Structures are given as structure tokens and as C-alpha cells.
């Protein structure tokens, strides 16, 4: 391993160790990505992707997804993307309160399916060995109506309840910086991504990189920190994620 590689590896390891300890009350999980991408033509490619994510210090499934997507390279620096994602989400428990702070209802965690469509514009520019990329992605997620149960503290029994169907638009704005190390297959990157619904809901910070082997195999390793805007989502828990991915490209 060259000196530069070692430095990067050490920096990543330190980041992965130090950042979670900076906020002990936050949650930690693992994201595993597995994908395949087919280059249909010089400008157009399609892909299949699955994702598995855990939470609760790796102990609980958060969601599983399967996605199809297409990318179109308009120019060297501009790409268009579109895709569909099927999600199976393990929704966290929810506790609603009365005005005086006493408990009203408690809904335990439950699984439900959702559908998501997205479209994105991705532009990037090389600045020496750095590459700066800006991606704007619109996504619409639809959650069908779902039946589940909840505990009513006033009446002291479990009761059936309906989780109503819901659709949500989100604009994701990502700024990514990559560094091309000479003669090295590993490309480190950092990025920040803002999720905006009716207002800023969360920000994702990423430190990581990708390793490409023989042009076909791409490995990704990274650390995500998702910081929620608690004025919008007071109950959301900031999360640390270790991300591991593999994509086969042909």
C-alpha cells in the first residue's frame, strides 16, 4: 500500500471511529448496497440496485429496497437520471402525547411498503485532481394505506388503527467533492446533501470513497451522518451509518 493510500485509510478509520462517539445519543446502523449497471450505449445506461439498512446499533432492520434506474449522459459534464424504487420500511414506533405530556397512543413499529419515483440532474466539473459534482434530485414517495395496531393509554387496550395513505415530495441537493489520486484505484470523496420537503428536513454528510477493480467491479465504503432538523421532525433520531456497497458494471 502506497503512502497516500495509507493516509486515506487512516483518515477514514479515524473518522469512522470518532464521529459516532461525538454523539452517543444518536443511532448507528449499516447500509449495504448491491447493484448492477449496464451500459446500453455510449450515453445511456440502466441499473438495478438493492439496499439493506439497519438501525438501532445494527440490531434492527430499517428498510430494504429494490430499484431500477436509467442514466443519460447529455454532455461530458451533465447527466440526467430517473428511477423507481420499491421500499419495504420498518417504521419506528410512535408515541403521541396529550397536551399535559401524558401518553395518548403508542403505535409499535410496523412494516409497510412504499413506492418512490425520482428524477435527477447531475453536473460536474474537474478542478485539477478534484471533481466537484452537484446533483439535484426530485423524488416522490407514496405510502399506501396500512392497517396496524396501537395502544390507547386512556382506555388501556390495543386497538386497530389505519395509517392513511401519504405522498411526499422531496428535493435532494447534493454537493460532492472527489479527489483523484494518481495511479490509485481508490477515489476518496466527501459530500453533503440537503433533503428539503416543505422545509429543510435533514442533511446527510458523507465521508468515503470508491475502489474500482478492473473497470467492472466497484466497491464503496463510507460513513454517513444524517442530521435531522428537529424543529420539523422533533422525534427523528440522528443516525450514523457505515455504508458498504458493490456494483458490477458492464
Amino acid at each position, binding site marked *: 500500500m502506497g503512502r497516500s493510500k495509507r493516509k486515506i485509510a487512516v483518515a477514514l478509520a479515524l473518522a469512522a471511529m470518532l464521529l459516532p462517539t461525538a454523539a452517543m445519543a444518536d443511532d448507528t446502523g449499516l447500509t449495504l448496497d448491491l447493484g448492477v449497471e449496464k451500459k446500453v450505449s455510449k450515453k445511456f445506461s440502466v441499473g438495478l440496485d438493492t439496499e*439493506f439498512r439497519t438501525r438501532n446499533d445494527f440490531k434492527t432492520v430499517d428498510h430494504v429496497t429494490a430499484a431500477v434506474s436509467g442514466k443519460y449522459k447529455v454532455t461530458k459534464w451533465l447527466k440526467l437520471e430517473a428511477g423507481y424504487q420499491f421500499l419495504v420500511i420498518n417504521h419506528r414506533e410512535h408515541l403521541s402525547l396529550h397536551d399535559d405530556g*401524558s401518553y395518548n397512543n403508542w403505535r409499535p413499529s410496523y412494516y409497510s411498503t412504499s413506492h418512490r419515483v425520482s428524477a435527477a440532474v447531475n453536473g460536474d466539473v474537474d478542478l485539477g485532481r478534484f471533481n466537484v459534482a452537484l446533483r439535484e434530485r426530485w423524488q416522490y414517495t407514496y405510502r399506501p394505506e396500512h392497517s396496524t395496531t396501537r395502544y390507547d393509554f386512556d382506555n388501556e387496550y390495543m386497538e386497530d388503527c389505519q395509517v392513511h395513505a401519504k405522498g411526499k415530495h422531496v428535493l435532494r441537493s447534493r454537493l460532492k467533492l472527489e479527489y483523484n489520486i494518481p495511479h490509485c484505484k481508490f477515489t476518496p470523496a466527501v459530500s453533503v446533501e440537503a433533503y428539503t420537503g416543505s422545509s429543510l428536513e435533514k442533511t446527510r454528510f458523507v465521508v468515503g470513497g470508491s475502489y474500482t477493480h478492473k473497470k467492472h467491479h466497484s466497491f464503496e465504503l463510507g460513513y454517513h451522518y444524517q442530521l435531522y432538523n428537529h424543529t420539523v421532525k422533533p422525534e427523528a433520531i440522528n443516525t450514523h451509518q457505515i455504508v458498504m456497497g458493490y456494483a458490477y458494471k458492464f
Partner: protein
Amino acid sequence: MPTSSRRKMKLAKYTFLALAAMLLAACTNDDTDLEWLIDNNPGKVVPPVIEMDYSDLDEGLDVIVTDPSDETYNDYWENSPWTTTVRVNYTADGATVTGTGTRAKAVIDGGHVVLTILASRVHVIASGECQDGSLKVYSDNKYKMTLNGLTLANPTGPAINNQCGKTLYLIVAQGTANKLQDGADYAYVEEEDMKGTLFSEGQVIFSGQGELEVTSVSHNAIASDDYLRFRKGCKYKLTSEKGNCLRGKDAVYVDGSVFNMTTRGDAKKGITSRGLVAINGGRATIITSGAPVVEAELNDTTSSAGVKCDSIMTIAGGELRILCLGEGGKGINAHQGIVMTGGKVTVVTQGVKGLASPKGIKCEGELAVTAGALYSYSKHARPVDATTLNLAPAHRVYETKTHLFKVEY
């Protein structure tokens, strides 16, 4: 295989095993334990235990009103002379009546006595025990009746049926234990009401220093088509399986004494009146467990209650303790307001919400509290539902939660 390839294989193997272990570990649930939530609910209130209390009550002397201009002057038998004594004595075989003379006449049928009082100032003393007997009284004048160790059960109607529209002064003799009970089926007499084990057409003023236990298996325990007043000094145990414990059509005044009331009747009450209910002293413990009843004609639901008052309810002293266990059962249901100027009221409703809402205190009108201590807890509904809540300032304790209301002066 070259060394580097072996290393890669080894790395891939361990990576795979590590991932597999992590996936297996991700099978647990991250929900909070429900029992923990229930135990640690910030709104959890442990209400006081309300159970029957037969202990003595130090309530001081029963002060007799001697001012003729006082509106309660005539409620004191001590303010009238009593010159004729009629004794009704019951045994297992029947009854005997003595002392009637020309001022009363008695018709006896086994243990069933019909006494017609023909003059004023008559004092009836009833005693003895009979499991198939009754005492019915007709009178155009107010009269006094002393229960002097009377145990009387009537399988076909009220044990005591007072058809007199004037005042009945009912005295529970000092140191005596008296028991009255009705039956499941009443044998009605045309144009006569009989609405409970102890029924009176006119007002009844209770006094004395004895114990009176009144049980009804089908109707009210004590009922009057006028008003009821209870003076200090007695202990009452009132139980009704299907009716109210105390029903004073025009009013109920509790000036003193110890009450333990239980009603299991659907939509029935501990104390009920179409007029005033005034709690001025004593200690009343009321436990209700009846379910609500749908009144189809009125398209309305009526539920059980510790106290139901169609007019103003006043609380000036004493202690009122109410426990409602039935679905939708209310502690106090007052239709025209509640005025509390003293005393201590504790209401606990444990019933579930169904056809009716089990509110601690329902007050259509103003709930005004200027003194005393008021505690209302409803496990499944609001502790207080008043059109207007008017609390005097300078309360010593004031606490409101979803299911609790508490104010103390």
C-alpha cells in the same frame, strides 16, 4: 494459488461472515417495552382508594334550629310537641300495635301493618323483627317515627311506606341497629306510589344516633316524592341492586351522618334529585357500578352517577367520596351548576367509555369553587367537564392533567 489471491479470498470470506453476522443480529425489535411505558406514563395518576367507611365520625353536636323564622325550623321535631305514642312491635309471626286510642287506627295482616293517624302530635315507635312484614302509614298531619331496633323485610313492596304528604320525622334511636328490605316484585295499590324500600310521599327528616341499613333488590333504597334531609349522628348503609340509594324528588339535604351507599343498577345513582342537592356535613361514600341505558324515546343515554342533580348542587361541608365503576359512570352530574364553598369531594371514575363518557364531574353550568378540597379523577375521560369553571384565587393546591383535576384551599 498465489499468496495475494489467498489473502483476497480470506478477506472476502471474513467480510462475508461479518456481514452475515450483522444481518442476523438485525432481527431484534427496537420498540420500547409497553409495560415500561405504562408504568412510566407521566400522566399516570394513582387515585385514592375509595371503599366503604363505617368508622365513627366526629361531627359535633347536632344544633337544633330554634328560630321560627329560619326556613329549616320545621325540619326539627324538637320544635313540636308529641303527645301520643303508638307502638308497633314486630315478631316473626306478625305485629302488634298499641297506643292507638282514638288518635290512630291500625289494620294488621300478619306482619303487615296499615296505620292511619287521625290526629296531630303522634309519635310512632317501631321495633322488632319480621321477614314478611311492612308498615304503611296514612296521615294528614306530620308525625314522628322512631326506629327502635327494627328489622323489617317486605317481599312484595316497601318495608316502610309513608303515604303522608306532610313531614315525617324519622328517628333512628340511639344505639339501635335497624334494617329494612324490600322484595323483587311490588304488589302495587291503585293511585299509590311505592318507589323504594323506605318510601314517603312527603318530606322525611332523618335524625338520631343509631344505625339504619336499607336494602332494595328492585327499587330505590330511600325515596321521597318531596325532599329528604339528614341530620347529624346516624350511620346509614344503603344498597340498591336496581335503583338509586337516595332519591329526594324535590331536594336532598345532607347536614351530617355517615353514609355508605352502593348501587349496582344500570343508570342509577347514589344520590339523585330533580331539585337541589346540598352537602353540608357528614361523610358519604358512594360506589356505583351500573352501565348506561339508552332512552329510546328521548334518543338519549343516561348513565350511572354518584350524585345526580337536576338543579344546583351545593357543597358547604362534609366529605363526599364517590367511586364509579360502570361504563360511562359519572361521579357528579349536575344540570345547573355546582357551588362549592367548603367540604371535601373526592371523585374517582374507573369505568370505560362506551355509550356514555365516564367523566369525573359533569356540570352543565358553572362549577364554582371558593373553598374546600376538590379531587376528580377519570381513568378514561375528562375529570371535569363544566360549561364554566370558576375557581377563587389563592388556592393552596391546583393541578390539572388529562385525567385529573385537583384544587384545594
